[in-house]
């Protein structure tokens, strides 16, 4: 590990759907996403980053939090729904040393965490899509952490803070990337790709409200709003990627926000957003949500009652 303190250079929100990679020609919006990813790729390459740190809602874990530690995962994935659009073959460059550091930082904050490195492990579609768009030649090493199915906001914040701990300790210059849809309601029937649209006007209006805040650099405001957004617009995985991203980057509104693109992908809200730290931002508002520094375990309310009685 480097002796120099690491830093987080900024963050991005990227959509998880593979169609902009698999079939950009099938829909103008999907092609637009692929084209605008190139703008983000150029921005990242100019940043001097040496680590892309991803949280993907498509990698679901049960046993705590998993960090990918295979230095060169190579395999292929066929999407569960969009198999007829082809196969995603991948060969990635992962920062195994950082994965171990992240695991240790997570454990130091009370989280159950482990690294995984298995030949043939199915890297998730969101991670593959994002890295194909932003890092196609593996110029920058990546690290990916899973999205625990049961983690609540507090646990996800702690996971984000542990990511920041690990970056600082590792000396890496990192870009944090939340891989997630906004509204996540898909069309449950097969559609003509050319006719794709956001599933409902309500979803679209909520997505645009969130993007308005993000364009103002108000990431922490969006994090505070995530529960309501999820209820109203079927947010992807309760918007854990936003919680993680906000916690990793420091829980404030001091960013320059850029909405690179916003398009429907099979009904979901697919947005590409950049957040660069800024001297002057929107300022911190009054926050209602709790904060957490340390994870103290599952609540196990019913188990505890039973134990007390015995």
């Amino acid at each position, binding site marked *: 590990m480097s002796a120099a303190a690491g830093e987080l250079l900024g963050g991005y929100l990227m959509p998880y759907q593979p169609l902009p990679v698999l079939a950009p020609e099938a829909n103008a919006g999907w092609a637009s996403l692929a084209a605008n990813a190139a703008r983000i790729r150029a921005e990242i390459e100019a940043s001097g980053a040496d680590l892309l740190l991803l949280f993907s809602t498509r*990698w*679901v*874990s*049960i*046993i*705590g939090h998993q960090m990918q530690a295979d230095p060169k995962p190579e395999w*292929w*994935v*066929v999407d*569960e*729904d969009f*198999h*007829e659009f*082809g*196969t995603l073959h991948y060969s990635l460059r992962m920062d195994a040393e950082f994965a171990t550091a992240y695991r240790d930082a997570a454990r130091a904050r009370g989280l*159950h965490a482990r690294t*995984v490195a*298995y*030949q*043939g*492990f*199915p890297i*998730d579609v969101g991670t593959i899509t994002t890295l194909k768009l932003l890092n196609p030649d593996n110029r920058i090493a990546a690290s990916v952490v899973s999205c*625990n*199915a*049961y983690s609540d906001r507090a646990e996800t914040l702690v996971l984000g803070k542990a990511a920041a701990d690990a970056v600082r300790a590792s000396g890496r210059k990192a870009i944090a990337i939340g891989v997630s849809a906004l509204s996540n*309601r*898909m*069309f*449950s*029937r*097969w559609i003509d790709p050319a006719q794709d649209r956001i599933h409902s006007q309500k979803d679209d209006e909520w997505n645009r409200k969130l993007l308005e805040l993000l364009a103002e650099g108000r990431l922490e405001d969006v994090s505070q709003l995530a529960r309501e957004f999820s209820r109203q617009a*079927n947010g992807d995985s309760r918007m854990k990627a936003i919680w993680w991203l906000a916690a990793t980057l420091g829980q404030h509104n001091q960013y320059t926000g850029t909405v690179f693109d916003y398009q429907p992908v*099979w009904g979901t809200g697919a947005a590409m957003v950049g957040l660069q730290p800024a001297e002057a931002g929107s300022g911190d508002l009054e926050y209602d949500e709790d904060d957490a520094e340390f994870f103290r375990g*599952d609540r*196990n*309310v*019913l*188990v505890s009652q*039973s134990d007390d009685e015995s």
Partner: protein
Amino acid sequence: MSEPGRIVAGILSPHPPHLIYASNPPQNEPRSSRAGAWNGLLDGYEKLRAELARHEFDVLVAHTPHWKTRTGHHFLGVPHFEGKSVDPIFPNLFQYNFALDIDVELSEAIHDEAAAAGLSTRMMRNPEFRVDYGTITSCHLVHPAWDKPVVAISSARTAFDYSNEAGDQEMLALGRATRRAIEASGRRALCLASNSLSHRHFTSEPEDPEDPSFEHVYNENQSAWDRHILGLMKAGETRRIFDEMPDFTEQCVAETKDGCLSWLLAAMDFPPLPATVHGYGTVIGTGNAVVSWDLDSARTEASA
């Protein structure tokens, strides 16, 4: 085939990869300690296999929670798959080298019946598709010889996108479509619902995943609901199980949300037949039961 087809038996065959791990089959790379945490379920599968040995069958038709499709109901449509399946959730336990044949003709027939019933359906024709570990695990545990073809049906996410009730109504239609297609095909089919009952996991595991001192149900609520559903199964109250399914799913965090059991009950046409519970046990806190409805034996007894 000239004889009408039939469902030989309906089986609840949960798919925890832990059971493959504990069995140490040659296809799976990790080796277990055989410390015994899941022996009750393994014994249950052994009893099930003994029961099935009395029957002839042509095909296993599996509805799996781990092929999650949000664009309707999908069906494997490639004659043969082989490859390596690594469980993304328990990769330390399941790295399984699989090779299986698909009964594409029956798969297409069920697809067509389901589409005719108004369901959104899709055939999966990509030969590079990695067969999900739910299908692999359930089929392996029910019939480890792998000498029969398989039909694998995805879990459409209707219940997740809309409601448990909406999901079950689709499974009702899908189950009936499955039954019609099997009967028209002349096949003798085993139908497998590859789901757990209560499905709240612990989020940590012991150093030896098979440590029996760690294993117990997540909480008493889950256990009470599982006992209730198993009681209905033993009493032959299949229709009542279906009626209570949305509440069971909601209140027990049950994997029935994925639709497998509802599909199975509908495919069997809700027989008033007491089921055999071959085994019940927990795996990392979730409740799992190996259960069969021996339809062929019931037919024989009815005609005697």
